[in-house]
């Protein structure tokens, strides 16, 4: 069993810590996503795991073996891992079949076994008719599948993916997302997947690690990350969230534009200001003042856009804070009108930072 464990992993270039004291345990057979904006250290973390980069401090263990530490680093070729690169890195001078079987050749697998495995993987990735083509003659999606086949045929203990879908167009990206998940479920290797696209992470991962500034901001299931962000960065990065600020009141309430807003996680008790996140489509927008006054804030519509299946509003409350609200397409209120916003308390989440 090959779980992957990062302990206090740090990589510095000069005084700049690209990966800053990360600890993470990835159970065997799970699919973990490192999610974050560009420059957050996710690719460096992946390359540390692969062994292309040596850590400045901390260690990486695979199973019960230490593979990386500042003292010694097992070279990539000895780690029994596979990787899919952002550029696919298909060798242009080898055919599809040669690309795919290269790893087997290195492992001195006999011809008959190689042939059998090649046929199996070609069938799985639907590449059989293209085996003798060169990568230059394939479309983006086909190249992507060759990269996938090449990485999988060696039956790695760990599969690393570095933004594998960023060069594909939208339709194909959706298709390949499910393909990657399907193959993972079929072979059950440990997968570490780097992306900056939150929907990609949501649809494929068992565990998402949101990274920022070389640190892991939050690690959890997609539901955790989406519904229970515990920092302003995570709330904003996962997207579609408003983050508002107000004075902390007693009993799990925050003063928002004069309204004592009740929040779901009452445990957060601090003096001073608290940031509260609420999703754009959790807010209810009403044209008439409702009878129920709990968590209802008056506002003015600044602009609204019809998006087909929904409407996107920008509204402003009394203290000047602007919020985005997504409503059903039928809720049409003209710009300049007065509206009332209901912020259900179970959707309001006080953030730690």
């Amino acid at each position, binding site marked *: 069993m090959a779980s992957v464990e990062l302990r206090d992993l740090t990589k510095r270039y000069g005084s700049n810590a690209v990966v800053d004291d990360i600890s993470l345990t990835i159970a065997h057979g799970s699919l973990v996503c490192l999610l974050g904006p560009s420059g957050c250290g996710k690719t460096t973390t992946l390359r540390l795991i*692969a*062994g*292309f980069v040596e850590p400045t401090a901390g260690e990486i263990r695979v199973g*019960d*073996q230490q593979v990386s530490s500042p003292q*010694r*680093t*097992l*070279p*990539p*070729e*000895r*780690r*029994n*891992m*596979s*990787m899919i*690169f*952002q*550029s696919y*890195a*298909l*060798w*242009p*001078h080898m055919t599809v079949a040669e690309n795919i079987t*290269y*790893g087997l050749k*290195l*492992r001195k*697998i006999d011809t008959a076994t190689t042939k059998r495995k090649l046929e199996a993987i070609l069938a799985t990735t639907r590449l059989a008719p293209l085996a003798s083509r060169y990568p230059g003659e394939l479309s983006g999606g086909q190249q992507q599948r060759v990269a996938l086949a*090449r*990485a999988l045929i*060696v*039956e790695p*203990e760990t599969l*690393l993916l570095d933004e594998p879908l960023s060069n594909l167009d939208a339709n194909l990206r959706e298709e390949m997302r499910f393909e990657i998940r399907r193959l993972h479920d079929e*072979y059950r290797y440990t997968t570490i997947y780097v992306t900056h696209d939150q929907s990609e992470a949501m649809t494929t991962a068992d565990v998402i690690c949101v990274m920022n500034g070389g640190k892991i901001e939050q690690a959890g299931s997609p539901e955790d990350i989406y519904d229970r962000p515990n920092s302003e960065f995570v709330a904003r990065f996962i997207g579609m969230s408003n983050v508002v600020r107000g004075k902390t009141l007693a009993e799990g309430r925050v003063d928002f534009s004069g309204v004592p807003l009740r929040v779901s996680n009452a445990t957060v008790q601090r003096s001073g200001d608290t940031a509260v996140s609420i999703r754009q489509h959790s807010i209810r927008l009403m044209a008439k003042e409702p009878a129920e006054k709990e968590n209802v804030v008056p506002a003015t519509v600044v602009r609204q856009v019809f998006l087909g299946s929904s409407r996107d509003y920008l509204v402003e409350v009394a203290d000047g804070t602007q919020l985005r609200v997504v409503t059903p397409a039928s809720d049409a209120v003209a710009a300049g009108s007065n509206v009332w916003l209901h912020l259900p308390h179970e959707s309001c989440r006080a953030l730690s930072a």
Partner: protein
Amino acid sequence: MTLALPAQKEGRRTFKVDFSVPVLLTFAALLCVLILLPISWLVMYSLSEVDPATKERVFTLAQFRTLFSDPDLVEPLITTMIVAISSSVACCLVAAPMGWLVARTDMPMTKVIRALVTASFVTPPFLGAIAWEILAAPNSGLLNKLYRFLTGAEMDAYLFNIYSMPGLIFVIACYTFPYVFVLVANALDRIPGDLEDASSILGAGTWTTARRVTIPLVLPALLAGALVAFLQAMILFGSPAILALPAGFHTMTTKIWSLFQYPPKPELAAAASLPLLFLTVMLLRGQQMILGRKGYSIVGGKSGEPRLIRLGWFVVPAMAFVVIVLMLPVFLPYFALLNAAFSPIATNLVTSATFTMKNFHFTFFELSTTQLALKNTFILGAASATIGTVLALVISYATARKAITGYRVLGFLATAPIAIPGIVLGVGLFLAYTRPPFVLYGTLWVLLIAYITIELPAAYQQLQSAFRAVHPELEDASRILGATRLRSLRDVTAPLLRTSVLATWCFIFVSTVRELSAAIMLFTSETKVVSVLIFDLKESGDLGAIAILGLSMLVLTFTVVIFINRLPGFGSSGLRNT
């Protein structure tokens, strides 16, 4: 499926052997010997003289005082400036309109024109100068004979005298204008059509657009071209040696060379070399600044094909202009060489009755030095190409992959020789290798060092861009699948670089065969090469043999250039003229 692989054995340690420091030091030391050693001797000599009383070398500025006061040395300096400026201006006047016609108008046969410009590019300038001697020497020149025949003028009347300052400027311009042409035409090729369309849609006519948009955009390229043309004219040795010496005047390069004739004045030669070195560095910096200015680089994503300007009836004078321009460096000289090769007397037109293979037989079977020169040239060409390619390959791997710390230093050292004119390097190497610890003068080794130094920058630049084209992830992919660093290089990098390496090898080989400036300073009777042999034969007036050797050299060059252009995925790039 099951895991078919044996598990990694715990405790199987890899010892990180850090090759970077020894590799860096070895190569840095090697490059220092190649570059810094001759330059240091050059500077040392220029600032010293031997005290007749004590026989010791003492510091003095006397060499520089002589350099800037003795009319014998000031005159060549002035001549060089006049020649360089005039030929650079002439190049621009011819190359700019021609580049525009080829890149931006509906002129026919532009591919042929570009190929012919390449032909004048790869013609060794000293060969062109000799060909023009056959054509336009005052008495025996073919063109002057034709003039006398047509007009019935006196026996000593002539139309052209190639042994003159204008003659020298003309011949130099013939073989440097391709530099300007290529820069201007490439700049015009790269200007997106949209920029001109944007001007048209705002109401500017064709000519206004050309004047206000197109020309200002290529001005930096033209200016850079002018600097390169100036530089080439300044450091050229062959053409002035062939044309200026009979006319009784010197340029800097020929003066430096003559300072090594008996009685040798190496200190003065060293001092005279330094202004050339200094100017070359300045000119290259200037060119970089002009071409590197961000404001002029063309911004934007996808853009349409440029619209070609319709020439209409103007195509006739335009075509005539281009034909005349190409006649001067290519058609006429090649004709003169072919004529000289197969005629008993070089300056008489060959007829079917006088056609002879005598020159051919003489050159290859009777002339004793030919065999030796061919052998030396071949050995030196192959050795410089092989060593130069390997050197460039290792350095460009280190810099492109940032494989070792301090890779920038290596890159800088590998590019530095571009700023050392061949003749200056010749002087430096002469001074450096005629004394212990490296007594190499008189051997092929010193020529080998000269050739490698001269060709290294171009080779390095070619291979570095080749390495850049191979995405580092291609190597990473091989590593992660289980290949070692060396195995990855063998299986992935090497096959992808094969054509570039081959092309670089060929380029160095051809450039070496054509090199004259450094070789003329370093050869001895035992280490003669073909270019020096041609120069020697010129002294003895064997034009037929020169034509045969020159044409063989051209055939070899063209074969290689065409071969490289046919290689998949390889465009043409510049040869360094000497």
